[in-house]
């Protein structure tokens, strides 16, 4: 019987690094880099999504962006939804995390309940709330039965934007609760104990001990919600469809409408690239701004 023991092949360190990196590199290139490069290429064309040979239009799509009133309006709506939504998600997430950061069965159940909306698909959430807030919806019936005029949750542009923010916050803040709870677990109890010994009250303990120690969690929560809300689309589609009169169009909603309803895929690609750059710049900027607070924790 021949000796089955094979000689052990040892790859040079560089080669083993390359072998280990290859699968991830291929995936990243295939599913992230290539689509971005193709989108960037299409953004300089007049592609309608149907013709095989798009024509180059140079920077026309980007210049058009600057003068398009719909883009300007969608940018404002997106800004409102993002700023108000990010603050509300974090305030609600942190507040509930502080309340639920105690052992107990009830708190365990409540954590699951609070997280539940996050696992429902956004389209379903949109339709669900449209059945509640619509002019013929559940709340309107309650008002009507009580002899009052229904509130224009979805028919008035200002109310409709408010409704979108409220629904988005309801659907998102569960994950913020979980992340803040994880952050709260990392605060050493000894610090709280020391603060108490020094005579600090609840608010003082929170401000001087808990909040600074939560800095990394705050950064993660802010960036995650900010990026998510800048791309909000499905809830708008199911809740208002961009209406009334396009007044609740967000930037992501506009990109999809322009690309697939009006067959302006080249222009839609220019909008998408612009949004991507804005998201990257804001995420990096916010992370850089938060670095000082995080450094104070690690110091």
């Amino acid at each position, binding site marked *: 019987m021949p000796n089955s023991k094979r000689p052990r092949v040892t790859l040079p360190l560089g080669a083993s690094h390359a072998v280990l990196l290859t699968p991830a590199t291929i995936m990243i290139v295939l599913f992230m880099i290539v689509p971005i*490069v193709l989108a960037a290429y299409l953004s300089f064309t007049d592609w309608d999504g149907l013709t095989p040979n798009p024509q180059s239009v140079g920077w026309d799509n980007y210049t058009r962006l600057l003068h398009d009133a719909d883009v300007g309006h969608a940018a404002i709506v997106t800004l409102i939804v993002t700023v108000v939504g990010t603050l509300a998600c974090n305030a609600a997430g942190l507040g509930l995390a502080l309340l639920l950061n105690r052992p107990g069965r009830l708190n365990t159940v409540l954590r699951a309940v609070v997280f539940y909306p996050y696992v429902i698909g956004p389209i379903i959430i949109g339709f669900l709330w449209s059945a509640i807030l619509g*002019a013929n919806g559940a709340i309107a019936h309650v008002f009507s039965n009580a002899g009052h005029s229904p509130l*224009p949750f979805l028919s008035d542009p200002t109310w409709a934007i408010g409704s979108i923010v409220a629904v988005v916050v309801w659907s998102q803040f569960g994950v913020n609760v979980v992340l803040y709870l994880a952050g709260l677990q990392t605060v050493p109890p000894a610090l709280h104990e020391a603060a108490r010994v020094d005579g600090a009250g609840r608010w003082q303990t929170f401000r001087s001990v808990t909040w600074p120690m939560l800095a990394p969690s705050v950064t993660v929560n802010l960036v995650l919600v900010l990026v998510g809300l800048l791309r909000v689309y499905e809830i708008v589609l199911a809740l208002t469809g961009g209406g009334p*009169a396009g007044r609740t169009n967000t930037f992501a909603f506009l990109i999809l409408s322009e690309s697939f309803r009006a067959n302006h895929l080249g222009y839609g690609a220019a909008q998408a690239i612009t949004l991507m750059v804005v998201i990257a710049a804001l995420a990096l900027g916010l992370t850089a701004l938060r670095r000082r607070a995080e450094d104070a924790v690690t110091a």
Partner: protein
Amino acid sequence: MTNIRRRVLVATAAATTAILLTACSSSGGFQDTGGAGDATSANLRLLVNVTPVLTKQFYEDLVKPYTDAHPGITVTIEAPTAADVSATLQQQLAAGSPPDLVSGSLGRDTVPQLAALPEEQWVKDAPYAEQSRVGGVMWQAGSGNQVQSLVFYNKAAFTKAGLTAPPKSLDDLTAALVKLKGAGYVPTQTAGEWVTGAQVQMMANSNVLGATPDWFVKRNTKAVTFAGSPWSKVLETYHGWVKQGLTPKDAMGLKYQDAMDQFLAGKSATFIMGGWFVPSADEAKKDVGVFPMPTLDGNPAPVAGNPSIPWSVTKSSKNQAAALDLLKFLVTDKDAVTKELKAEGNFRKGFEYDATPLNKEVGAIVEQAPATVVASNGQGDNSAPTGFNDELNKLVQGLYLDQKPADVLKSIDGWYSSNAK
């Protein structure tokens, strides 16, 4: 370490270049030409418009007699996976996997991706095939005529308001709506979504396209404008309704289904809609009547319609011969056409089915109309740019907010001029 990094970078760059070259050289998955294929043996993929009435099962039952008679042919029914048939077709074309037959509302941009239908009598006889011509070529054949620009009305509401005859002119209609409001009804039902713009288009069909059937051809060459056409009077009339409270105050918060429910519950007195509303009204068993959309001058106008369940063959289909033969069956076979007509309550001369009383009323409107015009955004060379319906809907909804009819007309003219090809 520098060497390792360089090797990794070179490998990554090579992979990226290879993938990009592959992606670019295939023209994004488009295939300019397909092939006739074998007419007796093929698996045909049909991309269809699925609605509560036109279900997948409906289409499967529709083609079954054909596949039973042609054992070599199998048919796969595909529902849209994107927003609608047009968007799904766009994605399938880009992915290099187009269907053989497609049924749905398609814009003029799509025509280069569709096969020219033959210059044969059965094609010319199919509803709206002649009107589908782009550059002289027919590319779509309908199974029937789907009537638009109808005003459904609650008979009890009309009686209570003392209205004994349907209004003939738009001014008469406005006066009737005022009386209906006085009788305690929501005078005319509307909703957000696509409904607002579609209803205004139905008002315009009779008044704009009736007088100038090739209106979109003229608008495409800037020979006419929205602001300088009867569109102006139509929008002013509609704006007047909004200001006088003749439409629901919360209309923009309603969906199409809500609008149907409100009307069929008897809360609203009239509902401007297309013939596809007939099956829902029949199912609700309400005493509903229908009259044609009144005109500016009160004279009878041509009936506006669209092809119902229109069929096209894709240019990149590898089974064009079999697909065309199935298309011929779908627009000529008596049983198949009747089934298609009955499903949505549509019409076609020479094809009759057991119609409901309300459907017969619509049929009488079609019979009495002096002519038929292609409704809404037109068809073939005589059609608006893709995206017109959405843009018009958005602008018309502005009348419920702070927009004036003149601003809407200016905006739609501006949009049209930027997008007309």
